[in-house]
């Protein structure tokens, strides 16, 4: 039986870890990390086949955080899942830490580097092809940002995944609608992203990305669907900066570092479970 409340608590813990690590580093991206907290929680604490004792286990499920700047929430999940010490989170972006500004496989549990946007989905296609060719049954998950899909390479990868019927590849669009300099609509209106991916040959699921229950239900449905002959894309509707009232929906919190006062307020909200 899945303990939904425990997963909700973990998502909140990942938010606390994210804000704290960025605050201590005085550098990092909070907004898009907070919007992804529930999804990453479900992946690392419910769904993915992993072994923290053997991070490079060949049969493990893979996860690519293609929106690599959201690394703090991934690092929090990996540390809380036992891939490395929780204390390491306090050394985010520091010269003697393996926790780089964007993910890198030198960090135990990280499957692929990211940072330059638009490349992760292609790498996920490569991993999914490798599974098919070597007859392995692991799944590949790739989370993208909604600003990131303005990169043309995403659509090159989308074509390839559909061509090769990669039903072992699950894309996740963290649809928080805000990017570095403003909203998606202000910078580059993408129209109906569901229809775009659908027209490229993907099966589309649209969910509330802050609902643990919906995420679990959708992922279980996809991975148990034996008739699926195409890649799946979950449009995960989220709020940038989710969980900290003054950060929610604000482009300014894409890459800003909280002041001491803001940090204290954020901690109070997160630890008080107000949101």
């Amino acid at each position, binding site marked *: 039986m899945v303990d939904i409340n425990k997963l909700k608590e973990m998502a909140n813990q990942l938010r606390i870890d994210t804000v704290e690590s960025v605050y201590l580093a005085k550098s990092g991206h909070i907004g898009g990390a907070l919007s992804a907290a529930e999804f990453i929680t479900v992946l690392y604490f419910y769904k993915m086949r992993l072994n923290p004792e053997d991070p490079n286990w*060949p049969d493990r499920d*893979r996860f690519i955080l293609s929106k690599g700047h959201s690394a703090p929430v991934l690092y929090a999940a990996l540390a809380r899942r036992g891939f490395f010490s929780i204390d390491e989170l306090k050394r985010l972006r520091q010269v003697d830490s393996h926790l780089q500004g964007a993910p*890198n*496989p030198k960090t135990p549990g990280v*499957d*692929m*580097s990211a*940072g*330059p946007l638009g*490349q*992760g989905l*292609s*790498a*996920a*296609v*490569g*991993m*999914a*092809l*490798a*599974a*098919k*060719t*070597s007859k392995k049954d692991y799944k590949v998950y790739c989370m993208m940002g909604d600003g990131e899909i303005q990169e*043309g*390479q995403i659509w*090159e*990868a989308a*074509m*390839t995944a559909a061509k*090769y019927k990669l039903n072992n590849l699950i894309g996740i669009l963290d649809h928080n609608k805000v990017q570095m300099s403003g909203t998606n609509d202000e910078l580059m209106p993408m129209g109906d992203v569901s229809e775009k991916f659908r027209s490229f040959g993907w099966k589309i699921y649209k969910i509330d990305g802050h609902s643990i229950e919906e995420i679990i239900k959708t992922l279980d449905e996809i991975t148990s669907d034996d008739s699926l002959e195409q890649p799946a894309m979950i449009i995960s509707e989220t709020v940038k900066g989710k969980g900290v009232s003054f950060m929610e929906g604000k482009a300014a919190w894409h890459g800003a570092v909280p002041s001491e006062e803001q940090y204290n307020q954020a901690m109070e909200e997160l630890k008080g479970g107000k949101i």
Partner: protein
Amino acid sequence: MIANRVAFGNTVNEMAATNDKIVVVDSDCINVLNYGNFAKNYPERFYECGIAEQNMVSIAAGLASCGMIPFVASFAVFTSMRALDQVRNMVCYNNYNVKVIGTHAGIETGFDGATHQAIEDIAIMRAIPNIRVLAPSTPIMTSKLTKIMTETYGPFYMRFGREPNRELYDENEEFYIGGSKTLREGNQLTIVACGRMVDLAVQAADELAQEQINVRVIDMYSIKPMDEETIMKAAKETGLILTIEDHNVIGGLGGAVSEFTAEKCPCKVVKMGLNDEFARSGSMNDLFNKYGFTKENIIRKVKELVNG
């Protein structure tokens, strides 16, 4: 006579029979790289991306992260420039076992014109950490280096041209990463060349020898790492080095030799190549004549340097 790119495609197909980790990620270059047999023999290991080089390179990174040995090949302008971000940030940064191939390198690409002539690829690739850079001169060498880089873990960039190449080596010749071949001995000047320019350098050296001008010719097929010992010996023994490459004179083979000699064994290094300009459309021979990639021009330059 076959082109190096044909020898490459044949070798990948041949190796795949005994190495099931070898995979090809293609971007509509199946005939250009002579991948036809591989695609026919190993369809489950041949992935066609269409005209999407960036996607091709990142897919290769994903495959490599799962233990495969991917080959990614296209025109050198595209693997080294269109997909540079992907080569740097996904392949080299992670030190993945991806073999990146640039065919149709240099102005020998000819008729397609400057947009398709890679004259910066050696300089670009050489500047990226982790990757090694090879520029074979002949089909036998291409085949052997393809095998060696497949057996050697890590990212490689191999560049070669479009047209058929005269063979300068026999089947028993040995090559290695960081090696070179001294094809002619001489003490008045050393020519360090790579790719097709090696053939021209040998022809020039043979003609010069008839006039008692003794020129050493080094085939510097491994540009990074480079055979520094052989360069140092040449600098000390001949005191004059002429580098020749089908590439811009900035940052390529001549750049690599100059950087090394300036620090370790100062001697005069003169660089022959494309003189920091874009070339034009034309046949290989017409372009080589126009930009000075000829036996006659090498002879003239050597005489000028030796007598000067």
